[in-house]
């Protein structure tokens, strides 16, 4: 019956967990393969093909403003009367303000709280409904998926056929305007001024760029170059890898709607009512059309439409303009519009060869003759506002309204354009994708299989085809009916090898993983990523080309002009200037020694305790260690086992399972998955234990994870030290006092306080106290209680700039502990501010935590207060005060220490929340951030360079876990030192 000694038994603690995992894995795998409980399409990559941009058909309006150029131009005939296809249904409960999108079978729209609906295009019946619970922008349809960028910062991908959620990606700030799907990337811009590219199959963030101001206008793409604008006139042209092609800042310009792209030009509608045309090649201003002084002048809040030869728009005053795209001279100014009745004109107009559709100032849908501006027909909405941009398809126009209704204007009409279809191939017969095919200024891009489809009325044209890496082609074409099976053979552009290495300007070491884009003559573009030795190889056409390098947070981008002259260009050296990071500090450099010193100190203390214990013990002969010593040894030997088990947990749930989902082991047997698991776990555990934690991007820096930890851990430890001292003092005194007279008024108050403390979330308590004391704190200290270091405003009155010993990561040098460093540099005003902030935050943490601690402590204090020894002491006439604080206190201390260890996780949770609320750069704050990021990004966990760094999350958990583990060990040992009766039985 008797168990072996507990120490021996516990060495195999890892086994049960492994059994658990072994049991769970085949279940998880089987679930995936059979995909029974959940539609197969819900697993990214399982059944949907890699998305591509199919050529727009007559019934496609797939994204904001129709196409990735945001041109608002579609090469079909829209409706020519206000007849509706079906009586409009109540599609959503709340107003539809984002534009609808349409494909050959369905109409998709979403209302302002995220109710998404798909209607059958033929009869208007609801095909499916779902909700994303946040205001979406105009969706984008691509590859059978519907992408919705929402106000809550999430990008949702739904299965367009069923409405099932496929993935979400967290872009951490409200997504503005529309999204874009190009070459398997969903591109979206946010209110925080960042442009993101997300893998459209997995939802993983591929790269992000900052624009510097809230996004204005939906990001656009033409010929493989992305364009995005910030509301302050910032313009960015980037490759599909996120590398800069050019940037431009328009002065004295503010944008709300951004721009449309057509014929290698960007047309910007500005809030001052002007339209500016920029070159898409370099961002230079080509012309500016000013409406100043015009009778109907007003801010442009709806994206202009362009067919490449004219630019047409409506401004906020209701003026409808058409100007020539080439030089910006006026074509016509419409007199058909009504003066604005005060509604913002947000609905982006649509241009077709036969009609120009827009919502005018009196909330009327107008169709104007695009050549003259004469009104063809109109449909008044009366008092109902319409902010949704219309979607125009062959013989039809779809628009959503503020009463949640979708109107589909589509009279019966004959098809006036003939379909022209074919494919583009290279001389070997390989299909060429993304080739621009142009027919009478109507153009399209070829799909992955090289196919294209265009529409043209009868006539004689020249068909133009060309794209990156090919020589342009022009063939005459006579259209008198449908044409199919055209085969356009494009010869490759002669290119030459360009190779070189990327080096750090400061240290000369090679830079890996940077994206290198080459933009050459004739729209030629290519790109690569630098190898681990910094090397890169590209093909470039003859002529003057540009290399631009970027994509690394730790380096400034660079661009280099190269000239290819009929021969390969080898051995280029491109230097990158590192972003100044400051020294990582003492802690980082000496971390191993500090750990060793800590272990040595621990061993020394344990040995001293052992010696003192031995002196007091009797009957120890023949034993190397006393019972206490054996306990310490057993307890310490438990730690590595617990550590390995935690690492297994972190690996399984933090890396492996999400990757199983992402990789979708179709058809893989359990053996393969298990092998992957164990190999992965061994590598993971070794890299974690050996301190090889890799790099992580956090904020705008990309640093080794050790550096981040070196920056953040001292803050957390310092705050923790103060909070624990305050908590211990408060908790010890209050717990003893409450337990002294159970049911006395003090105990009653304590009980109530501890219950409330248990149930009222810590953040509410902290926010309420903060609200009550904020102004006093600012008045007394001269700085806000936020953060650990002084805020920038504080420096204004104290020397202007942070002192030189504050590093770029907000870390202080040399130790990383701000108070110690301030003392080292004898900067006492700095010291006082930091101390005040730390004390304030520590007190708040302590208040919240002690309430929880007391729930445990008063029980044990009450028991000790009734102990025989205390009663005996009272009978000897010991005064009550001494009985309480000395006799009972001494008895209760070991148990208090243990209780503290038990509640340490609660404490850490409290401190993490407090760090988050105070914006402290501590481990707890980072952990909460990373946890939520990882949780919400679905498959976003990556090792290495990614926006959400799974390794950072795992390492922060590891550190906090070590703190808990170490705290538990210490508490167990201290309690047993103070009270040997707690030791396990045995001699």
């Amino acid at each position, binding site marked *: 019956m008797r168990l072996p000694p507990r120490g021996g038994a516990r060495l195999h603690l890892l086994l049960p967990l492994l059994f658990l995992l072994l049991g769970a894995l085949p279940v998880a795998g089987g679930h995936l393969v059979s995909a029974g409980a959940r539609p197969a399409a819900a697993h990214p990559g399982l059944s949907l093909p890699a998305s591509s941009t199919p050529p727009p058909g007559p019934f496609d309006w797939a994204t904001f403003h129709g196409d990735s150029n945001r041109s608002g131009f579609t090469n079909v005939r829209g409706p020519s009367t206000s007849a509706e296809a079906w009586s409009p249904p109540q599609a959503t409960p709340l107003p539809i303000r984002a534009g609808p999108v349409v494909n050959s079978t369905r109409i998709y729209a979403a209302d302002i709280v995220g109710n998404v609906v798909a209607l059958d295009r033929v009869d208007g019946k609801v095909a499916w409904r779902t909700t994303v619970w946040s205001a979406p922008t105009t969706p984008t349809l691509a590859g059978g998926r519907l992408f919705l960028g929402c106000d809550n910062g999430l990008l949702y991908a739904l299965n367009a056929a069923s409405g099932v959620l496929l993935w979400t990606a967290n872009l951490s700030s409200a997504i503005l305007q529309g999204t874009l799907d190009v070459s398997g990337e969903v591109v979206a811009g946010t209110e925080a001024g960042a442009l993101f590219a997300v893998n459209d199959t997995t939802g993983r963030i591929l790269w992000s760029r900052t624009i510097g101001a809230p996004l204005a206008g939906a990001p656009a793409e033409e010929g493989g170059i992305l364009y995005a604008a910030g509301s302050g006139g910032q313009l960015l042209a980037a490759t599909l890898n996120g590398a800069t092609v050019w940037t431009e800042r328009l002065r004295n310009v503010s944008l709300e709607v951004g721009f449309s792209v057509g014929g290698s030009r960007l047309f910007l509608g500005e809030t001052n009512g002007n339209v500016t045309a920029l070159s898409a090649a370099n961002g230079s201003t080509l012309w500016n059309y000013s409406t100043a002084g015009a009778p109907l002048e007003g801010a442009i809040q709806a994206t202009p439409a362009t067919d490449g030869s004219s630019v047409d728009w409506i401004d906020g005053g209701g003026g409808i303009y058409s100007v020539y795209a080439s030089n910006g001279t006026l074509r016509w100014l419409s007199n058909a519009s009504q003066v604005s009745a005060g509604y913002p004109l947000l609905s982006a107009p649509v241009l077709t060869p036969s009609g120009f559709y827009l919502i005018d100032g009196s909330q009327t849908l107008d169709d104007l003759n695009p050549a003259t501006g004469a009104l063809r027909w109109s449909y008044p909405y009366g008092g109902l506002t319409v902010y949704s941009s219309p979607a125009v398809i062959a013989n039809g126009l779809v628009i959503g309204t503020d009463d949640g209704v979708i109107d589909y204007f589509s009279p019966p009409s004959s098809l006036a354009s003939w379909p022209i279809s074919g494919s583009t191939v290279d001389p070997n017969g390989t299909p060429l994708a993304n080739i621009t095919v142009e027919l009478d200024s109507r153009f399209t891009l070829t799909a992955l299989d090289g196919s294209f489809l265009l529409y043209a009325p009868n006539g004689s044209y020249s068909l133009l085809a060309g794209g990156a890496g090919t020589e342009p082609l022009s063939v005459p074409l006579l259209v008198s009916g449908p044409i199919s099976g055209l085969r356009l053979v494009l010869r490759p552009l002669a290119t030459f090898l360009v190779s070189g290495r990327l080096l750090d300007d400061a240290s000369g070491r090679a830079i890996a993983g940077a994206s290198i884009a080459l933009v050459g003559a004739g729209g030629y573009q290519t790109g690569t990523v630098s190898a681990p030795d910094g090397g890169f190889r590209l093909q470039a056409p003859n002529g003057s080309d540009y290399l631009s390098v970027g994509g690394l947070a730790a380096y400034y981008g660079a661009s280099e002009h190269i000239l290819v002259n009929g021969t390969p260009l080898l051995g280029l050296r491109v230097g990158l200037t590192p972003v100044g990071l400051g020294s990582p500090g003492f802690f980082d450099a000496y971390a191993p020694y500090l750990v060793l010193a800590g272990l040595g100190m621990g061993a020394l203390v344990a040995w001293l305790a052992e010696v003192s214990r031995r002196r007091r013990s009797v009957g120890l002969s023949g034993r190397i260690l006393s019972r206490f010593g054996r306990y310490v040894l057993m307890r310490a030997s438990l730690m590595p086992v617990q550590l390995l088990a935690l690492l297994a947990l972190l690996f399984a749930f933090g890396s492996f399972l999400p990757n199983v989902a992402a990789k979708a082991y179709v058809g893989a047997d359990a053996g393969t998955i298990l092998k992957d698991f164990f190999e992965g776990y061994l590598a993971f555990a070794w890299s974690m234990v050996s301190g090889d934690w890799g790099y992580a991007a956090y904020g705008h820096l990309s640093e080794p994870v050790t550096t981040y930890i070196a920056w953040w851990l001292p803050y957390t430890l310092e705050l923790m030290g103060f909070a624990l001292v305050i908590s211990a003092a408060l908790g010890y005194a209050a717990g003893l006092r409450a337990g002294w007279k159970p049911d006395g008024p003090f105990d009653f108050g304590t009980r109530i306080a501890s219950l409330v403390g248990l149930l009222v979330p810590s*953040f*509410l308590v902290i926010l309420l106290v903060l609200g009550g004391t904020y102004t006093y704190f600012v008045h007394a200290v001269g700085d806000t209680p936020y953060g650990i270091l002084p805020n920038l405003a504080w420096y204004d009155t104290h020397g202007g700039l942070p002192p030189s010993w504050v590093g770029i990561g907000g870390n202080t040098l040399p130790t990383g502990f701000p108070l110690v460093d301030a003392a080292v540099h004898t900067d006492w005003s700095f010291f006082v501010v930091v101390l005040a902030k730390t004390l304030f935050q520590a007190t708040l943490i302590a208040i919240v935590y002690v309430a929880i601690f007391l729930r445990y402590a008063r029980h044990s204090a009450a028991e000790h207060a009734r102990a025989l020894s205390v009663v005996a002491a009272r009978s000897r006439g010991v005064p009550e005060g001494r009985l309480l604080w000395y006799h009972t206190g001494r008895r209760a201390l070991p148990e208090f220490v243990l209780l503290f260890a038990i509640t340490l996780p609660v404490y850490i949770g409290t401190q993490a929340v407090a760090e988050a609320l105070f*914006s402290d750069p501590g481990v707890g704050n980072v952990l909460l951030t990373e946890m939520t990021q990882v949780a919400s990004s679905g498959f976003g966990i990556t090792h290495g360079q990614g926006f959400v760094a799974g390794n950072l999350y795992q390492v922060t958990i590891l550190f906090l876990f070590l703190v808990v583990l170490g705290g538990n060990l210490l508490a167990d040992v201290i309690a047993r030192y103070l009270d040997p009766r707690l030791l396990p039985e045995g001699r």
Partner: protein
Amino acid sequence: MTALAELAEPWEEEALHALRAERTPVRRLLRSLARNPSLLTGVSILGAYAALGLLAWIQYGNGVGVLPLSYTWAQALTPPGPTYAHPFGIMNVLGIDVADALYESIPWDLAILGSILGIAVALGTVAGAWAGYARGPIDWVVTSLVDLLLSVPPFFLVIVLFVGLYNFVPIGYTLVLFVLLFAIVLWPYYARPVRSRAESVTAEPYVEAARAAGGSRARILARHILPNSLDPVFAQIPIDVYQVFFVLTVFPFLGCWAQGAPGHSFAWVTPLPSAAFPEWGNLLAQGVCYGLQPAGSINFWWMYTFPALVLILFGVAVALTTDGLSAVFQPRVAR
């Protein structure tokens, strides 16, 4: 017994009668309820919650998982406070009547807490009592597992497990996953104290006597060990109510709060199907987030006070009930 009664003096008769009166468990419970005001209060409050929850469930029917959102209220810059028509006021941004939303939440919260605690307590007490009584390999397996799970802070563990698994779960079932995971994380907190209590109870003479009388293992476990090892369970339940609400409240709060606080990138993580799900923690989180800005001027107190009060009252009721129950099961500890 009869013989004893015949021989008994009148005062002994009376005492025997009192003993008999307490013999059925229901009577014993009713008696202790009457003698135990804290248990009575706690049980009545919980009963009221349960009744209201049932009522809400019947009233809302299939729509009980979706809060009725009002666009007009959502847009209100200064939402109306408590009035006769809306006794707990209106919460803007989300656009709900706070009283209605809290009422609609009752069945959900009772179900969430009930399932988590029910599974955890059942698993923990049975495993703990069994381990403490049977010893041997069962004890070793349970103790090892418990020690392992107890070494990780519960809310980290729940989130880590949740993050790892929720992609495998159909949308809409994440709440079920959350409940199961939380129960798995919490059961060791019951198993450990119950096991050590069961270990000492097993050594008591009455267990020895029951075994000598030929009682089966299962009967001894169910009749003697379990009831006498329950005390630590009652102390732990209110703490776990806190643990569950911590996760349900903190994560929606951080996600919501980060939307208005530049420099933070907390994502909105919740096991609930949507941000507009009727759940007290969720309502409290959003009430604080939208109703209280310490450095600013906004303080719509009703948006967070009423959800907090509903939560506190529930927690107090749970604490009173468990305190009372512990007095029933351990009469000597009773005050």
